[in-house]
C-alpha cells in the first residue's frame, strides 16, 4: 500500500506530491513507491527531463537508504533492476536512465574507494568523479580512462576479473557516501541552469536577433543572464500545439492564469522575471513563420529534452525543422542542456523517438468528421541529428558535437551503459 496520499485528491499526481510522499514512507513501502513512479511515467504525469530526473534521484535515494545489503552486488543489481523497469516505462525520458547510471557509478566508486587499489596487471578503471560533473571549466577529468585501453586489449588481456568479494565493507560504510552522492546529483540538477547561463555573455551580443522555440527554463535563464548586460531581440516560435500555453503564459507572466499548474512543477521558474521585463524585445511568431524570419536571425538557441550518445537531440517537435532552416541560412545552432540530459544511449530507433501526443490538441475531438475521416498526428519530439548542431553548452562548458561522446563517456561506467541483463 502506498503512503499517505501519493495522489492529491482530485489528482493528477504531480512531481511535488510524489517527492512529498516519498520522504514520508517507511522502508516497507518502497516497492510500492517504485510501482507508483512507474505508473506516473507511463501515464505521462511526471514528464520533462528535469522532473523525471528529480523523481528518479529521490526514489533511488530512498531505495538505497531503505535496503539492507550484505554484498554490494545486491544493491547494484537491485538498482539496475529498478532502472530497467523505469526506463521501459517511458523510453523517451532518457534522463531517468541517466540518473540510474549515475547512481550505479556512485556505488561502484564508493566501493573502489573503500577497497585496496586494483592490482596493476589490470588496466586501472576510471574513477568517474562527480567533481568533473561540477567543474564548470574544461570538461574532461585528467583521470586516465579505463574504457578505451581495456576495449582495445579486450582481445588479449583477460577480461577484468569479477569484483573481488566486497562483503568486507558492510552497507554501513558506503551507504552514507552514496546518499551524499545522490544529494550532490540532486543539487547538480538544480544548479545546472545557472552554470549554463554563466556562459551566456560569451555567445550573445548586443542587437543580435536570437531565435528560440517553445518553452525551456534553461534557455530562459540563459537569455535572462545575457539580458543583464546586453540588449537584443528574441524571436520565439510558440511550438503549437504542445507548448504554446506555457509560452504564452510565461511571456505575459501572469502566474494565476489557468494551466499554470503544469508550469508550477518547474518550481524554480519565476514569473516576475520574464524576458520582456528584463528589457528584451520579444517577438512571438507562429511556427510557420520560422523560415521567413531566419534570414534575419543571428543565432538559434534551443533547449532540448535529451542528448543521445552521438550528439543527436531528442527535442520538442519542430526543433528539427528549425535547425534545418538555420542550416539553410548558415545560422549557427546552439543547444543548451544540463549534463544530466546527456545519455550514453545511441538512438537506434529514430522513428520511435517521436512520441505521438494527444491529437486532440491539433483537432478538437468534438469535430466528429475529422475524428472520423482523418488520422490526426501530433508528435511530441523530434530527433535532431548531430550534424545539425554547431555547439552544445552544458554545465561543464561548451562542446563541439564531435567531442560530445567524451563528455558522455565521462559520466557513465561502461558496464552500466546497458541496464539489461
Amino acid at each position, binding site marked *: 500500500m502506498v503512503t499517505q496520499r501519493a495522489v492529491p485528491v482530485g489528482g493528477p499526481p504531480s512531481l511535488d506530491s510524489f517527492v512529498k510522499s516519498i520522504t514520508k514512507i517507511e522502508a516497507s513501502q518502497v516497492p510500492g513507491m517504485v510501482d507508483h513512479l512507474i505508473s506516473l511515467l507511463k501515464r505521462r504525469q511526471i514528464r520533462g527531463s528535469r522532473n523525471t530526473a528529480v523523481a528518479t534521484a529521490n526514489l533511488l535515494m530512498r531505495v538505497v537508504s531503505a535496503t539492507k545489503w550484505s554484498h554490494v552486488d545486491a544493491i547494484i543489481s537491485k538498482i539496475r533492476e529498478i532502472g530497467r523497469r523505469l526506463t521501459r516505462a517511458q523510453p523517451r525520458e532518457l534522463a531517468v536512465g541517466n540518473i540510474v547510471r549515475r547512481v550505479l557509478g556512485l556505488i561502484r566508486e564508493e566501493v573502489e574507494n573503500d577497497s585496496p587499489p586494483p592490482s596493476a596487471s589490470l588496466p586501472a578503471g576510471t574513477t568517474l568523479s562527480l567533481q568533473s560533473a561540477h567543474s564548470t571549466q574544461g570538461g574532461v577529468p585528467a583521470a586516465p580512462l579505463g*574504457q578505451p585501453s581495456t576495449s582495445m586489449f579486450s582481445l588479449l588481456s583477460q577480461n577484468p576479473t569479477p569484483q573481488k568479494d566486497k562483503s568486507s565493507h558492510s552497507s554501513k560504510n558506503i551507504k552514507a557516501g552514496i546518499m551524499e552522492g545522490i544529494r550532490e546529483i540532486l543539487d547538480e540538477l538544480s544548479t545546472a541552469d545557472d552554470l549554463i547561463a554563466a556562459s551566456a555573455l560569451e555567445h550573445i551580443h548586443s542587437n543580435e536577433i536570437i531565435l528560440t522555440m517553445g518553452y525551456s527554463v534553461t534557455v530562459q535563464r540563459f537569455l535572462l543572464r545575457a539580458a543583464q548586460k546586453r540588449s537584443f531581440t528574441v524571436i520565439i516560435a510558440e511550438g503549437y500545439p504542445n507548448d504554446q500555453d506555457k509560452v504564452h503564459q510565461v511571456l505575459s507572466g501572469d502566474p494565476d492564469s489557468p494551466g499554470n499548474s503544469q508550469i508550477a512543477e518547474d518550481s524554480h521558474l519565476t514569473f516576475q522575471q520574464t524576458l520582456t521585463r528584463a528589457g528584451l524585445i520579444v517577438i512571438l511568431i507562429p511556427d510557420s513563420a520560422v523560415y521567413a524570419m531566419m534570414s534575419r536571425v543571428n543565432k538559434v538557441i534551443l533547449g532540448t529534452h535529451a542528448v543521445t550518445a552521438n550528439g543527436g537531440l531528442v527535442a520538442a517537435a519542430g526543433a528539427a525543422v528549425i535547425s534545418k532552416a538555420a542550416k539553410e541560412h548558415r545560422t549557427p545552432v546552439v543547444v543548451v542542456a544540463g549534463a544530466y540530459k546527456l545519455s550514453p544511449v545511441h538512438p537506434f530507433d529514430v522513428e520511435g523517438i517521436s512520441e505521438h501526443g494527444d491529437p486532440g490538441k491539433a483537432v478538437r475531438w468534438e469535430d466528429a468528421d475529422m475524428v472520423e475521416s482523418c488520422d490526426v498526428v501530433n508528435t511530441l519530439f523530434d530527433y535532431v541529428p548531430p550534424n545539425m548542431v554547431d555547439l552544445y553548452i552544458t554545465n561543464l562548458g561548451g562542446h563541439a558535437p564531435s567531442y560530445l561522446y567524451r563528455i558522455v563517456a565521462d559520466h557513465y561506467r561502461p558496464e552500466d551503459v546497458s541496464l539489461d541483463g
Partner: protein
Amino acid sequence: MSEVKKASEGGQPQFDILKHYTNLLLTDSEITMPVAAIESLVALVDACQATTVSEFISIIEGGSDTLKSSVSNAISLSAGCDLFMRYIIQTLGNVGDIASCRDYLRNNGRLFVQRAKDARRRIALLGVNFVRDGMTVLLHAFSRVVIALLLEAAERGVRFKAIVTESRPSGLGKRAARVLRDKGIPVSVVSDSATGYAMGKCDLVLVGAEGVVENGGIINALGTFQLAILARSAKKPFYVVAESHKFVRLFPLSQYDLPFDQDIITYFTDDEEAARVEKEKEEKKLKNIPEALARNDGGIGGDNLNRAWGERPLVDFTGPEFITALITENGVLTPGAVSEELIRIWH
C-alpha cells in the same frame, strides 16, 4: 608447400611463422587476418628462447614483418601485429620479466581466436538493434561481422530485406548473398553500377572494414567509398561494423595516401594489355595457385586460399565525415571516439 618457405624470407628458422599463419587461415574460415596474425605471433613467442627483452622484442618484430611483407596489402594484418606488439610492450612494462609474460601468453594463447569470435558475437547483439522490421539494408562486399549481425536479426524474427552490391572485382557480394539466402533472407544482388539507383530504396547501409584508421575513417573493399558518398547525399545512415582489433595506426589523407600501391588504374594499349595478362598467368604459376581458386569467384575456399596467399581484394579509403557511427564490441562509437582509442594505446 615447400615453396612457401622460400617465399618467406626472415622469421625464425626453427619456426615458420608464415606457414603457421597460412594454416590458421586455411583451416578456419571464420578467423580474420589480424587474429590469425596475433595467433601466429603468440606461437612465435612460445617457440622462441629469447632471454633479453630486446631480443624478445626483435624476434616478434621480425615475425610481424614477415607476415606483413607476405601480403599485398597488410592493413588488417598489421593492425593485429601492431596491437600485439603494443600489448607485449605494455605487459612487459607491468610484469617485468619475459618468462612470466610468456607464461601468461602461453596460458591464454588458445583463447584469442575464441575471444575474437566473442567480440563478433557482442557486436551482433549490439548492432541488431539497428535492423528493424520491414527495413531494407544495403551491404557491400563480404564482412563476417556484418553477416553475423544480420543473421542475429533474422534469428529474432526481424523481417528485413538486403541489397548486396556485387562488389567487383572480388565479387564477394555474391557470397554474402548466398549466406543470407540460406537463412531465408530475401536478397537482391545489384551490379556496382546500380548502387546509386538502389540507394533510394534502402534504409540503412552496413559495411565491414579491413581496418579502422586513426581519424575514424575506414579502409575497406573497393567501392565502399562511392557507397558512402551516395549514402550521404541520400541522407541514409552509413554504419561501419568492425571489431576493435581492426583499429590500425594509420592516417591516410586521401585515397592515394595508403601505405601500399594497388594497380587499380592501369593504362594500357592493346598489346601491352596482352603482355600483362601473360605476366599475371606467370606469377600465378610461380605461386602455383590452382586456376580454379585463383579466380575470385567468391567461392569460400577460394577466398580463404586467396587470403592465405595474400591476395587481398582491392580497397579504398572512406573518410570519417561519411560515417554515421562505428559499431564495435565496445559500443556504438563516433569516429571521434575511435581516434581517441587509437591515440590512447599509442600514448
